[in-house]
């Protein structure tokens, strides 16, 4: 139904943060993030399914809608982002109005709202890209070394993930004309060629969500001095990745054991790793990150199980959103608690992160590859070309030819030669005529 109210409701949910992201508009507005979350809150309170189609956007099949699954997500997002924003700076601080950090946060929120409400693959992809890149901007602007490092790593992962997801999109498009989630689910169930695309989807979203072993940036971000970053991590990229898998793949309907078993294993490994790391080495901030990694691992394991055993999913699948949302709420509470304790202790510096050997090695490895790439082919081609040209010219030495051409003209200019050639021409012409005549 495209009636005016639903259009208004649904469109304002992503548009409000977008508008708020313009610095000029929110210069004097206190609590801009919360204002931006207001339409989402209103939408939450409206029962039933509301949807709107946007046939002239992107590739023509986009739309926004709220259903049972997205309601959970929307609720969680609203709560998490509200709390996080509240603790980004001291409450009531006017500086939040025009800081670039808030701009990036709001852009990221736009993406989040959009992807939660999207009804088709392309819209989801578009909004999640926006959210990812804006989140990277947010991490970079924060100013301390850890979040910048996290941003760099996540950027690389995001680009690779986006490419994988784009490929998956293309394959899905060949399988199914209707790219909305419902239509896609039907088509995948009927077709058998979707395996590769599903692998790409899972890979892409796992990279996005920070499933082990691509979790490094979560640890780094967790070690950052920004309060409540953990909440944003969960409420933003990680759960977006999880939602992606849940939306794109028709769990409980198909059976893809070769995909599900590895996911299951990876998820379990992630949980174990997170437990080990969190209990032995993490600093307080990184503990939140470990919790996130563990939760992610657990959920990925469940999803993997659902892919491998559809029956399992059909029974317990509905619990997953609840678990995710619940995890979010738990995180919120713990963060709140931590923040209160921080304020009491006037804990100023959290920059003393005990970076693990793993992190050092990973960063060093990245730097080495980047250096190699940068210098490997550094404009070698022009050097090669000029060397080849030099060799050619030594064969075809210009000055030699110049002399030859000059001397050619001089020879032709001498009268003796000229007259000889002249008589030769006359003879040849005559001969040619005689020959052709007799022949």
């Amino acid at each position, binding site marked *: 139904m495209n009636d005016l109210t639903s259009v208004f409701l649904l469109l304002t949910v992503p548009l409000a943060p977008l508008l708020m992201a313009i610095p000029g508009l929110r210069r004097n507005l206190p609590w801009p993030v919360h204002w931006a979350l207001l339409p989402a809150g209103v939408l939450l309170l409206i029962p039933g399914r509301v949807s709107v189609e946007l046939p002239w956007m992107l590739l023509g099949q986009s739309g926004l809608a709220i259903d049972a699954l997205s309601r959970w997500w929307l609720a969680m997002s609203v709560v998490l982002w509200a709390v996080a924003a509240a603790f980004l700076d001291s409450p009531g601080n006017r500086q939040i109005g025009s800081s670039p950090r808030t701009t990036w946060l709001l852009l990221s929120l736009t993406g989040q709202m959009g992807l939660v409400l999207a009804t088709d693959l392309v819209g989801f992809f578009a909004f999640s890209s926006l959210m990812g890149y804006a989140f990277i901007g947010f991490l970079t602007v924060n100013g301390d070394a850890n979040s910048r490092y996290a941003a760099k790593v996540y950027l690389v992962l995001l680009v690779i993930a986006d490419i994988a997801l784009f490929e998956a999109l293309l394959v899905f498009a060949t399988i199914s004309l209707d790219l909305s989630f419902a239509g896609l689910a039907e088509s995948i169930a009927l077709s058998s060629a979707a395996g590769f695309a599903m692998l790409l989807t899972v890979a892409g979203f796992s990279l996005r969500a920070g499933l082990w072993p691509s979790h490094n940036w979560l640890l780094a971000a967790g070690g950052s001095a920004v309060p409540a970053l953990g909440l944003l991590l969960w409420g933003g990229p990680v759960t977006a990745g999880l939602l992606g898998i849940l939306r794109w793949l028709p769990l409980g309907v198909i059976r893809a054991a070769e995909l599900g078993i590895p996911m299951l294993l990876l998820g379990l490994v992630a949980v174990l790793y997170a437990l080990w790391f969190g209990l032995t080495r993490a600093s307080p901030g990184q503990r939140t990150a470990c919790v996130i990694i563990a939760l992610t691992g657990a959920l990925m394991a469940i999803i993997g199980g659902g892919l491998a055993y559809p029956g399992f999913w059909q029974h317990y699948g509905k619990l997953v959103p609840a678990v995710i949302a619940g995890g979010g709420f738990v995180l919120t509470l713990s963060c709140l608690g931590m923040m209160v304790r921080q304020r009491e202790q006037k804990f100023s510096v959290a920059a003393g992160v005990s970076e693990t050997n793993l992190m050092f090695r990973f960063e060093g490895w990245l730097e080495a590859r980047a250096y190699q790439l940068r210098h490997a082919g550094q404009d070698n081609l022009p050097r090669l070309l000029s060397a080849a040209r030099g060799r050619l010219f030594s064969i075809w030495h210009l000055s030699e030819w110049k002399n030859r051409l000059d001397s050619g003209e001089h020879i032709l200019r001498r009268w003796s030669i000229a007259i000889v050639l002249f008589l030769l*021409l006359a003879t040849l012409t*005559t001969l040619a005529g005689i020959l052709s005549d007799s022949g």
Partner: protein
Amino acid sequence: MIFLVPDFPWEIIVVALPLAGALVCFLWPRHASLLALIAALGVAGAVSGLGWEITTHGPQRYAIGGWGAPLGIDLYSDGLSLSMLAISALVGLGVSIYACGYFDSQKARHFWPLWLFLWAALNALFVAADIFNLYVTLELLGLAAVALVALAGGAEALGAAMRYLLVSLLGSLIYLFGVALLYHGSGSVDIMILAQRVESGPAAWTAMGLMSAGLLLKTALFPLHFWLPPAHASAPAPVSALLSALVVKGSFYIFLRLWLEIFMDLGASPGQLVGILGAAAVLWGGIQALRQTRLKMLIAYSTISQLGYLFMAFAITGITAWTGMLYLLLSHALAKAAMFMAAGNILHFGGHDRIAELDRVAQRLPLTLAAFSLAGISIIGLPPSGGFIAKWLLLEAALDSEQWWWVVVLMLGGLLAAGYIFKVIGHAFTQADLSHEARAVPANMEWAALTLACAAILLGFLVPAVTLLIDIGSPFDARYAG
């Protein structure tokens, strides 16, 4: 036409008017330029009159004194001669306007009579109908041209003029031997009668060989081109324009006529020889032009290169090739005249014509550079110009007859031409290391060059009209049609 154009003997007027003009300019040197311009306009008008007559009544044959061949002298004009007359009228008009501003009064008193005399000889050559008359006009043409080259004065010009004189005399002499042989063999010198009477035999072949050699020497076909670059480069600019655009075309016209009327009936393989030499001329001229450091030498070698194209058409026979050749003839005349005039402007402006030191001519003489560029476009054969049409037709003819090697030469020639033309244009934009004192260039000199260059470009759009014109009298059919 509503009003009746009186039935003048336009062919006579076309020859007599410049002759009279030459005399008058000699007698009254003070008003020479004005009188010469009037004469030029008169000639242009006479050519139009002749043109009108030919287009309405067909090819014209005029017997001087009413006597008629084989005893008397006939004048014959068909589409081919008309196009040659028209182009020389156009170029002549342009050069006259140009020369008004170029020469100082001392040189001018010699220039005008000589130039008009040359023009008379040229026009007579184009309408001559027998081979002895052709010899006479050819000789006169050569002598007038030599005198004009020597006009520049100085050791270089005199040396070049001397060489040109010797070459000219040698060529005409050998041609005369050929005329004698043909006359002895067939009893007449009239072309039409010769075409019917001449039979293949050693006499005819020797005559052909001798006449061709003489004419090819005078048209500077490779490898007998050595005299052309010094002569054309050291002559004054208007003279260079005339030489490259018109004088070499005179001997070429004779060669073409004889070939079409007489020699083609006798067999075709000399055509391949001429074509090969033409191809060599294209490449040699192009490469040499690329190497030159002086602008006028570059343009002179460009002439050698372009003349080579004309000879290639003798190897690729067929009406398309002939049309292309003729189109090249016409557009080359216009373009080369414009180029030499532009070079003259640059020489006048800066006192030298070294290419590497052209010193931002693009800024300071925009009209001249525009003229040079437009003429260059026609020489290279880029659309839309007369040169492009010619190149297209020659390529089409070569591809139709499946002679790939000519195609390669045509493309290479175009690329070489692009090389040397744009070498000049590129240097015209940049600044030289040493600036030089500049003299102002009179407006008529710049505009004359630009007009001729635009005409070369416009020729590219007039194909239907031109093809119609040159077909009058069907000179390119193997059979002579009276």
